[in-house]
């Protein structure tokens, strides 16, 4: 084995392999990040279809029962129903948190993969930081998910259970990893000035200058960047509109409706009429919560899908699929990214039809991401399986897959 081959096998010589070698930090973050996003979104879809609506119904029923117990003067029953509401809210809250954190950590992993060439640590150190981030990104959502089931069993603390402690430890791992990457970026940029000068004087260019991810100008990359930017902008505008028009009004109405549930029973001359008013308030309260939930969900999902579109735009050179299939998956991702938030907003008017279309939109995003991940895995397979000589001659897998290859 000559020196050039030895250097290549260490993942240093070939610009593509050097940036995406087997078990390299960037590959760990790209594959780990997309997988986290897919698992997080699938979990979110399953949660939305099978848990969210029954959970909301359960909360509504318990609140109605608590209101009737107030009318009957039965404080024990009130306490029992609020216990049920608390459990249902914890069940919902921990699942939403697990979904959100898993997807967001996936984004973070992809972001760090993009800036990896600027991080001035050894490949070994970068790999450790990447592994730390992925471990934390798995531990936190799993811990959060377990909170509802583990509770305070055997906990040394008064209000925090073991599942929370494990989740927080996962969060700490992610923070430590990010601090490590930030220090590496800072170190890299403090060293960057001499490299730039060297380029001008004809010295070898910085590996960053040749980074395939940052240099890509393909159709897929441009459409994903433009579409992602527009989705984020739409999400910002919707968020501003919601904050200005609805947020404070809804917060005030929340307390007013709860107040009406109790005062109408106590202040109304006729107990029956008082109970009827209170039950109407429970119905209105349910509608208010639904309105609040769909607006927040639409706002956060449209921005998240914009961000994911922009992130996967960078990794299109690593998606080893036919060009026409790459384009189809790009269109599918953007379509899903629009469909889910728009039809979530329409859920209150169109009911289950809108909910089904929204869930289909989410599923479309998941399928498009899974297809892109498959392309990335095929790319890594080709890269790892190719003989060193072909890679040294620059015949490593490039952006387009041969005819007849997988979709």
């Amino acid at each position, binding site marked *: 084995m000559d020196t050039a081959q030895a250097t290549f096998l260490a993942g240093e010589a070939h610009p593509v392999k050097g940036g995406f070698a087997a078990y390299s930090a960037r590959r760990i973050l790209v594959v780990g990040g997309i997988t986290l996003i897919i698992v997080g979104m699938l979990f979110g879809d399953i949660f939305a279809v099978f848990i969210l609506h029954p959970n909301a119904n359960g909360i509504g029923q318990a609140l109605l029962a608590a209101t009737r117990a107030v009318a009957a003067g039965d404080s024990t029953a009130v306490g029992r129903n609020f216990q049920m509401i608390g459990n249902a809210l914890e069940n919902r809250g921990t699942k939403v948190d697990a979904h959100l954190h898993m997807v967001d950590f996936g984004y973070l992993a992809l*972001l760090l993969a993009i800036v990896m060439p600027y991080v001035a640590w050894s490949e070994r150190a970068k790999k450790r930081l990447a592994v730390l981030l992925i471990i934390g990104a798995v531990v936190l959502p799993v811990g959060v998910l377990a909170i509802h089931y583990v509770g305070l069993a055997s906990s040394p603390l008064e209000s925090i259970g073991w599942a*929370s402690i494990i989740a927080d430890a996962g969060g700490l791992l992610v923070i430590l990893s*990010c601090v490590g990457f930030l220090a590496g*970026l800072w170190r890299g940029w403090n060293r960057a000035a001499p490299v730039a000068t060297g380029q001008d004087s004809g010295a070898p260019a910085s590996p960053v200058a040749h980074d395939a991810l940052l240099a890509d100008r393909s159709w897929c990359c441009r459409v994903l*960047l*433009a579409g992602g930017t527009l989705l984020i902008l739409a999400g910002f505008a919707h968020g501003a509109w919601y904050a200005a028009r609805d947020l404070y009004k809804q917060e005030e109405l929340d307390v007013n409706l709860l107040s009406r549930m109790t*005062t109408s029973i106590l202040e109304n001359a006729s107990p029956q009429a008082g109970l009827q008013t209170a039950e109407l308030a429970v119905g209105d309260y349910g509608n208010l919560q639904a309105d609040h939930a769909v607006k927040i969900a639409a706002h956060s999902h449209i921005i998240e899908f914009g961000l994911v579109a922009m992130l996967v735009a960078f990794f299109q050179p690593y998606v080893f699929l036919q060009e026409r299939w790459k384009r189809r998956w790009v269109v599918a991702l953007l379509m899903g990214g629009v469909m889910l938030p728009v039809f979530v907003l329409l859920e209150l008017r169109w009911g289950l039809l809108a909910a089904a279309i929204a869930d289909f939109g989410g599923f479309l995003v998941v399928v498009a991401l899974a297809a892109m991940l498959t392309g990335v895995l095929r790319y890594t397979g080709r890269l790892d399986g190719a003989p060193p000589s072909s890679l040294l001659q620059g015949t490593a897998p490039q952006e387009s897959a041969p005819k007849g290859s997988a979709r």
Partner: protein
Amino acid sequence: MTGARKMLILGGLALAILGMSYGLYFALFVEHQTLDGIGGALATSFIRAAERNLPESQAALDRYGEIKYVYTRQIDVHGHWIGLGMLLIVLGAVFERVGFADRIKFVLALALLIGAVTFPLGVFLQTLDHGSLPRAVAIFGSGLLIAGLSAVAFGFARRTS
């Protein structure tokens, strides 16, 4: 690498770390206690109503409204700081494709960074003061972000044309 890109990538990562650290602190020392407070106040309000004690019922409901107001904003601060931090990093990676002069791009990057810091900061200040100043800070920050991102989108389009 231009100053604008450095500012966006370093600033974005720093902001994400700040948001995560705030989230960790919140999860450890605030969240569970706050959730207990929200649930406890609401249950107390209904229990007092069942006991026909309306003043105490209303007082508990007011407490519920206050705690929930603060809790909602604390969650928003955590989510927005991290989300905006990630957005800044993405924009930093492609900022050379924005079709403006370096000086304008630097101003845009600065506006985006200031907006990403001040918008959640304004929301956080609302947990301490219910007056109009924190709202103004949040509105200023979000306005800066929307204007900055619109300009960046225009810059991308300008470049491709």
